[in-house]
């Protein structure tokens, strides 16, 4: 198991290296950072001076080396707008995004899993059909629309909940539901199908013949075995949520990474965008590593593959 985790860790480091290449290629080779930073009306001399100051007149491999050296220390340069280190700015916005993502994940799991179990316990009942309809709609509705509709109904018409900014728990409700809705629908369907498959197994019949109550059969015997695909999917879902947070945070003026990234793009603040892309990828890779480790712990057979 340790060997497997060590291998996965090394693999993760390689991926982070690769992501630095992608970020470097997108910003240094494909786009011209100077053109983004300077006023288009500047003279050629000003452009050349800026290029020289930033080391952009050096050969590409040297530039990459410098970029890499700085990136390892978390130094992506100064934010062009806030005039402070980009990474520090990004780290200041990280807690808000973590808070939102965790709240969304809690909503996803605490609604999606129980409804999925109930659906599977009584398949093709009215409740199951309603659940299915809900899940289908949830997977088709874009979160930027859901968010705006939630604002329209709960904020503007009913005036029940705050619709912008970060604050107490009630500020968290609408953004978390908006961000978690797609995942909830997916987890619901996934739990249902995994449960249905397990409930068909011989050992479930054995448990029933033994005379166990239906709730014990469903919750103790079936649910535990249906859990593995759900755990795997939750890992994937985190990535989706980091992306979805970009839109959710923009809608609700939530002061997190996603909103910072969008604002920085529109102001051509490239060091900040790079830092967000880098940090988000590192977080995502770490989560994947964690999920793989967890998975290995739940099902030890995996490490021998």
């Amino acid at each position, binding site marked *: 198991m340790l060997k497997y985790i060590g291998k996965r860790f090394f693999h993760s480091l390689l*991926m982070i290296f690769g992501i630095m290449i992608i970020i470097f290629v*997108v910003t240094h080779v*494909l786009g011209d950072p100077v053109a983004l930073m300077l006023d288009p009306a500047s003279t050629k001399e000003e452009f050349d001076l800026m290029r020289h100051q930033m080391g952009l007149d050096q050969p590409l491999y040297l530039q990459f080396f410098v970029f890499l050296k700085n990136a390892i220390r978390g130094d992506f340069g100064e934010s062009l707008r806030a005039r402070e280190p980009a990474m520090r700015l990004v780290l200041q916005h990280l807690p808000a995004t973590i808070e939102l993502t965790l709240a969304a994940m809690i909503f996803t799991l605490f609604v999606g899993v129980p409804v999925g179990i109930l659906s599977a316990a009584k398949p093709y009942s009215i409740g199951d059909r309603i659940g299915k309809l809900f899940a*289908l709609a949830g997977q088709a509705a*874009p979160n930027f629309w859901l968010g*705006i509709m939630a604002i329209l109904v709960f904020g503007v018409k009913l005036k029940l909940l705050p619709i912008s900014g970060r604050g107490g728990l009630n500020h968290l409700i609408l953004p978390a539901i908006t961000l978690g809705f797609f995942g909830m629908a997916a987890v619901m*369907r996934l739990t249902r199908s995994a449960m249905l498959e397990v409930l068909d197994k011989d050992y479930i019949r054995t448990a029933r013949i033994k005379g166990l109550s239906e709730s014990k059969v469903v919750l103790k015997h079936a649910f535990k075995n249906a859990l593995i695909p759900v755990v795997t999917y939750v890992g994937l879902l985190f990535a989706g949520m980091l*992306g979805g947070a970009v839109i959710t945070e923009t809608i609700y003026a939530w002061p997190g990474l996603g909103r910072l990234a969008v604002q920085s*793009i529109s102001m051509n603040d490239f060091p900040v965008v790079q830092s967000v892309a880098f940090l988000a990828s590192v977080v995502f890779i770490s989560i*994947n590593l964690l999920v793989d480790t967890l998975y290995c712990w739940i099902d030890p057979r995996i490490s021998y593959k």
Partner: protein
Amino acid sequence: MMARSNGAKKISALRRLPIGGGVILLLFILTAAFAPYIANQDPIRQDLAHTLAPPFWEEGGSKDHLLGTDNMGRDIFSRLVYGSRISLAVGFLSVLIGLIFGTWLGLVAGFFGGRLETLIMRITDMQLAMPFILLAITIIGAFGPSTMNVIIVLAIGLWPYYARMVRGEVLSVKQNEFVELAVIGGCGTFRLLFRHILPNITNTLIVMATLNFGMMIIFEGGLSFLGLGVRPPAPSWGGMLADGRAYLTVAWQLATFPGLAIMLVVLGTNLFGDWLRDTLDPKRKAY
């Protein structure tokens, strides 16, 4: 008794057909194809004397503007109708490009193996490790927003999924005897790939492409919503939604209908895709 069971059989056969999803999808495709005949107004023409008009069934609404007008006095219904062209075109083209590119690399990786395979699969892993929206906004930030760039970015986001899937399938198809026999029969590499291996993967590809089509429509909407996609005044559903955000308190119709359109078309695609998967690719489960 006999008649009843026949009836039940008919119903279950009907249930297996993708009626709901198929009808919705067809409706949107027809709308896009015949947009000039369906829309009753010019989608881009502004009419600042009649801004924020309500839909026809509300007080003050008129049949000229079925779903009302937006903040520039443009007809929402006509914009929605023309918007279907953008959404469907972006969805279709991005999936097509991503599919061709990814399938090609997946075929090469799975078939030839070796260092080339390692290289391709490592690149795939790396790209999948970056949250897609972030990759998209980084690229669009560097190149500027345009419809073409959205299509390219979405295709870039998609190809690794195809490469990974196709490689896996090639590895398993390669094990079959008919591949060995084709080689013994003197079949060339190119012919082997495209006549013997690829046809065995087509069903899976079609299912995946259908399900991705809806997803790409949502992503296009999201990017346009953030101002990083299709540029105004072109009637993109996501862009319409973004415009409507500022007028939520006074005109609910601006933001509501474009989102409904996206949801419906994606719902149709997902239902159709689920049916395709059950029919063409029964091995694969829901997830």
